[in-house]
């Protein structure tokens, strides 16, 4: 049951997986979105805020800021292990900014957030939070914790999580039109003839079949899938996959334990 790497970089991971059930792969995909622990602002104590944004809007914007969670995974407890304000569950960031009267309006960026834990910091310092006009100020304390995507979208570590069928493109007879209509440039035309150039790019849209009929055959390879992830930057793609599978395994473990007790 081989797994090949299609591509991999800091944020993206593409795999070709053969011989695994779709149900399992989709379970992993869903686990990536729903059950991967990620750090995010969860509670905000507003000390002062006379910015144009209301407290709840400001808090929401802070919640949406992605924080580097790579190290946090080992430092902080998972949500199911935390019930209250226990140790090793949370860390804090602070934001104090004031625009004196006479100064021009100033943007508050994520780089203005001061973290208690230097390893938990926004993945980019250039995310705008609020624009302060003169005389306005913001002073707040925000508590971060690990959470799962199923609770809130701010805990979702990926922007893309896809399992798709592995395509097979066969040319029975020549049909140049197929190259014209194919949105993914699967075919290559040389000497008025088409040949399959990027089979993996085929999305199974069957546009080519619409114009060429029997001349091309588009099928999905059974039990072979393409798995693609794109991280929002909070975790490395491989960490995401590992953590997602860990979560899944823990659930299975828990389930089997419960079944075991049943006798």
């Amino acid at each position, binding site marked *: 049951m081989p797994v090949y790497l299609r591509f991999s970089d800091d944020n993206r991971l593409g795999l070709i997986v053969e011989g695994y059930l779709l*149900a399992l792969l989709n379970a992993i995909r869903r686990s990536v979105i729903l059950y991967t622990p990620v750090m995010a602002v969860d509670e905000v104590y507003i000390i002062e805020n006379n910015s144009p944004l209301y407290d709840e809007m400001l808090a929401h914007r802070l919640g949406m800021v992605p924080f580097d969670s790579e190290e946090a995974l080992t430092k902080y407890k998972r949500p199911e292990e935390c019930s209250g304000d226990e140790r090793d569950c949370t860390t804090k960031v602070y934001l104090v900014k004031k625009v004196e009267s006479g100064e021009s309006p100033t943007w508050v960026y994520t780089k203005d957030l001061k973290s208690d834990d230097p390893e938990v910091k926004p993945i980019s310092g250039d995310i705008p939070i609020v624009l302060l006009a003169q005389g306005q100020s913001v002073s707040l304390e925000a508590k971060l914790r690990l959470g799962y995507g199923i609770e809130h979208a701010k805990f979702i570590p990926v922007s893309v*999580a896809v*399992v798709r069928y592995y395509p097979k493109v066969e040319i029975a007879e020549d049909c140049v039109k197929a190259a014209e209509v194919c949105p993914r440039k699967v075919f290559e035309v040389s000497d008025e003839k088409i040949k399959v150039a990027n089979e993996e790019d085929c999305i199974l849209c069957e546009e080519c079949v619409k114009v060429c009929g029997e001349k091309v055959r588009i099928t999905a390879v059974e039990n072979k899938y393409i798995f693609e992830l794109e991280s929002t930057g909070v975790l490395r793609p491989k960490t995401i996959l590992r953590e997602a599978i860990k979560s899944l395994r823990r659930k299975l473990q828990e389930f089997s334990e419960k079944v075991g007790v049943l006798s």
Partner: protein
Amino acid sequence: MLNVENRWTLIESYFKENGLVRQHLDSFDDFVRNKLQQIVDEQGEITPEIPGLKIKLGKIRVDRPKVREADRGPAVEITPMEARLRNLTYAGPIYLTITIIENNIESEPTEIYIGDLPIMLKSVIDPTSTMSAEELIKIGEDPKDPGGYFIINGTEKVIVTQEDLAVNRILVDYGKPGANVTHVAKITSAAPGYRVQTLIEREKDGTIQVSFASVPGKIPFAVMMRALGVVTDRDIAFAVSFDPTIQNELYPSLEQARAISTMEDALAFIGDRIAIGQKRENRIHKAEQTIDRYFLPHLGTTPETRKLKAYYLAAAVAKLIELYLGRREPDDKDHYANKRLRLAGDLMASLFRVAFKAFVKDLTYQLEKSKVRGRKLTLSNLVRSDIITERIRHALATGNWVGNKTGVSQLLDRTNWLSMLSHLRRVVSSLARGQPNFEARDLHGTQWGRMCPFETPEGPNSGLVKNLALMAQISVGIDDKEVEEELFRLGVIPVEEAITQVVEGRADLESLASYAKVFLNGKFVGYYKDGAELANRIRELRRSGQLNDEVNVAHIRTEFVNEVHVNTDGGRVRRPLIVVKNGEPLVTEEDIDNIRKGEKTFKDLVKEGKIEFLDAEEEENAYIALEPKDITEETTHLEIWPPAILGIVASIIPYPEHNQSPRNTYQSAMAKQALGLYAANFQLRTDSRAHFLHYPQKPLVQTRIMDVIGYNDRPAGANALMAVMTYTGYNMEDAIILNKSSVDRGMYRSTFFRLYSTEELKYPGGQEDKIGIPEPGARGYKGKEYYERLEDNGIVAPEVEVKGGDVLIGKVSPPRFLQEFKELTAEQAKRDTSVTLRYGESGTVDLVVVTQTAEGNKLVKVRVRDLRIPELGDKFATRHGQKGVVGMLLHEADMPYTVDGIVPDIILNPHALPSRMTVGQLLEALAGKYAAVVGKSVDATPWYYSPKEDEMKKALLEHGYLSNAAEVVYDGRTGQKVKGTILLGIVYYMKLHHMVADKIHARARGPVQILTRQPTEGRAREGGLRFGEMERDCLIGFGAASLLKDRLLDNSDKTVIYVCSQCGYVGYFDRKKNKYWCPIHEDKTVLYPVTVSYAFKLLLQELMSMGISPRLILGDKVPIGGGDGNE
């Protein structure tokens, strides 16, 4: 060539110059500049019944907006925002120059203050009209606010434009079938301050009768003519027409009046009707007076105008006979040439006239009173300024206008930017909405470019409430004296002159009969040989600037009719067109370049005669090309911008020409309910309720007009990725599925504001309200915990969380009746009149304003805000009349995903499309996707949109998408590929203000009404859900008697009454005596408890109050011993 871009430049220039509420501003400016003075001049002077005393009224002037504070200091200037916050009226003091003439000695003219005039924002007398954007921001105004409304007692009021039938016109029609009258001509004359109607009827016997207000019965036409000074049969015939066929029709009328052959006789005849049985001289005098004042008063009310009236009447008769002869059609009352719009200035003028008359009357009375007492005249002490102030303010505050019109001024709709603009451009018809009036509701051809064809409400007001099209302008009206003189200079032969010429044989009948009749504002002024030529000459004069550009002329020519109509009056809806001569539009590319360079404006082109405004009447003469390519030799005008036939709201619909037309109408209604940024100064404002969308976006799919009307700066919606598929089925019946993760990320979050306010009132007798925390003894004290959130001053602090029932402002008021006061101690008598948060609502205190009204009372306003995150049941809509509620919130992981990992925000059910035929929405999805892919917004202006469909499709294909905007998607729950492809595109969705949080309601137990003891009704009163008649019928049908009793009695107003077994009256249990008591038999009887509905007990008592004696005959519930229970 005037291509699309060039003509668009004209439109931009037009709006830059005029703004969007020009019609209101023009009208109000005219009122302040001219009409105000005219009304004073109509009065001229005051002559009280004091010998030798006269008061001359001079110049009237309105000062800058000011307020007189209660401490009687000098009036201080206010800003609109101050007026809104402090519940003030944004009004300027009116000053009138008065000269007292005593025994022919004129005193020094003095300026006195006579009242306050509410000032229309951004009108000439409003200081904010000349402020720069920075200055406006400094005083708390939205720099883009168009003005055109008033601020009365802190609320913004619009005077809604009223549509009326044109006055002073002769309108002919057939008589009612079966009646004695076969044809009828109607004239509504409008004189300053009043309107009267004149009817001219042709009866079955061929006679023509005239009837008008204040003379009972009908007057034969010939008699009327004689009374007006046209005596001989010949003169009457010539006055009517020079055409023998028409003259012939006069025989019955002339015959009928044979006996009355002189002017005196005729006057006496009329006088007979008014002053019955009086002396002949008196009768004649009375008749003269009545004719002068009530017969066609728009032509004048002096004896000199009688001849004029005679010719006007004759013209009306001619028109009537033409209708009878089948030479013309009855007048089309729905033709926009026969409609006039009355705007703020007009309506304010009639209001001010009445107020000013009352003021003068009061002043006269005061003068006489003070003279009787022998005091020295000091005008400033006698003038009561509150008469004018209060009358105007009252009318504006309530909408009840003079002439018994209601709903004239309305609260400005500030739901969003569009709803406000649309409200300012609304036109309401005077026709009753109760009647069918089918024709009046239909779209008329002459509404093209004047009224929006889409924007009208559904239901009873459909077609009666309209909205101005983008380029429609309304004439202010100019004096027709000059134009009349110009007409005569051009060679129009006055009627009288024509008759003399014929009589003296200087002109022959036949040729005069072929002359065109010339009408000026409906008044018959004379004859002209070649009507078409006259019309053209007038047009040339107008284009060259020798005549006012408000003059419009139409030459109406059919086989028999030959008339020239010149109009200069106010209230005509006109629209600009490019003049075309010899197949060439006069506006050149050079002109356009000059406009772009800023060297020329739209107005200059009007001045140069290259663009002119046509009213509906003149448009009948025009041959208008839609596009430059359509121009032929006969073309007279070129449309500037065909999409400008739409109103403001319909203009934001992308691809409207691809939609079924009612969808555009629905959308026009819905756009006004969308949440967005309704005004940039919303954080300062204290609207009674308001919403704002946290992340509004400008639409990816634009129309050109959006920039002009400011929609892109104050948008009301967001671009959402829409997929068209069924998925789970939770989007059936027009529901939509929302991506919960998108909602988590802030999509369509909004804030709801509600204002709570109270005032510390002072009462006669020195008592007053007190804002503070009420003492526990006060009546209606709610309990300590309800006041917990109040500060020491009795007001909640900002940013405090509050829920329904919490007190926001604590207040105690003195007892309502003095009696209570005597019985109780002072503290106990006080009533708790605290302001509490509405039942069922909650939120955070957002803003607290403590200020003072003009009367010096403390005024507290508390604004509470509530965060609204989209939830199940919230209403959303696209810009194509496709509305639906949220049926399900699905997590991103459960949503379908494309091969690129894209997840839609909204899933729309495909069944929403085929029957509605909103192809525009599909095109918008395609265009939205194209815009997202290429990274620039798309122009979807009707007819002129670009890029076209093919181009967008090609671009999509090039970027790796299917050209039809569909995509391959996988089911997020299973990972399986969905069969076929799914349309996935970006569509602008709006969140409408119908939200579940405002409507959700349930009750298990709760308050009952005092009178009936039945549960209260409605959510605001924590009411029950009505178990109505039909529901009752169901239970009866099922035979579920116990359930029925449970619903209608046990859980409603069940009561036990005690009925006397002897008399059958209702008695009671006297707890003091510990006895049952019958009102008749006292305790010498047995009372039995009976369970009835409290409403029934009430019925018995109501019957008693009417003198009916209802008795309840008691029997056993279960009869014992086989009786029927009636013993």
